[in-house]
């Protein structure tokens, strides 16, 4: 079965959408129901910063891949690695 590589991005984008909804809900809970103090603010800023870094790092790696390539899903799938028999 041959398909363009960018098909893999669809489930990933769905995951990102769900992750964004849960993240925004968590941030809302933190800011709405957390105590009015430095801990609430600091933890929220750390979460947003690390999330931004993770998304940026992901983007950097994802951007290096040629997503227009067509790949075969079953080709070579049942070939065992040679070192299994050494």
């Amino acid at each position, binding site marked *: 079965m041959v398909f363009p*590589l960018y098909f893999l*991005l669809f489930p990933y984008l769905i995951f990102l959408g769900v992750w964004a909804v849960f993240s925004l809900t*968590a941030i809302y*809970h933190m800011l709405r*129901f957390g105590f009015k103090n430095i*801990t609430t603010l600091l933890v929220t800023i750390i979460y947003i910063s690390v999330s931004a870094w*993770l998304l940026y790092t992901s983007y950097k*790696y994802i951007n290096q891949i040629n997503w227009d*390539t067509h790949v075969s899903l079953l080709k070579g799938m049942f070939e065992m690695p040679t070192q299994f028999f050494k």
Partner: protein
Amino acid sequence: MLSIYRLPGHLPNEKIIKVIRKDIFVLFKKIFLGALLALLPFFVLQIMLNSFPALLSGDLSYPLVVLGASAYYLFVWLFLFFSFIDYYLDIWIITNERIIDIKQEGFFSRVISEQRLNRIQDVTSEVTGIMPTILHYGDVFVQTAGTQQRFYFHQIPNPDKIRDAIIKLAEINKIKHGESK
């Protein structure tokens, strides 16, 4: 945001005596689990590379590894943040009039319940297990008058002291409201 000066349903002359969260060890356990989950892919990748050396150069395998790793780490980070929220937003507030239980249940549920001190009939503390005994954390059950549910302080530090404080405050409150014999 919640302020100690703006309690839910604030009563006249009500003062906060204590704000209690679960023991910090409960949070450390989740952080430790998060750290293990963060390190796990490195070990799995090493094992996979031994069997499939072309894993990081394949036309299909490399994009799968990149997308999988990205989704995995975003999930672990969200799990850690939510573990902190669960710890941070689950609080019990003891005032001179009542005890308030504020509970974050999952992502979309938040429960606030309260119990007047003058309705308290029985307070029990319970420490079970090795770590709770060593680190002095456990549960406190507050039984109130009538058929209402028991109030439950879960995995809090120094449960014996909290039990004594609640009993003392309940006695004072009953005298104040003229209910003590």
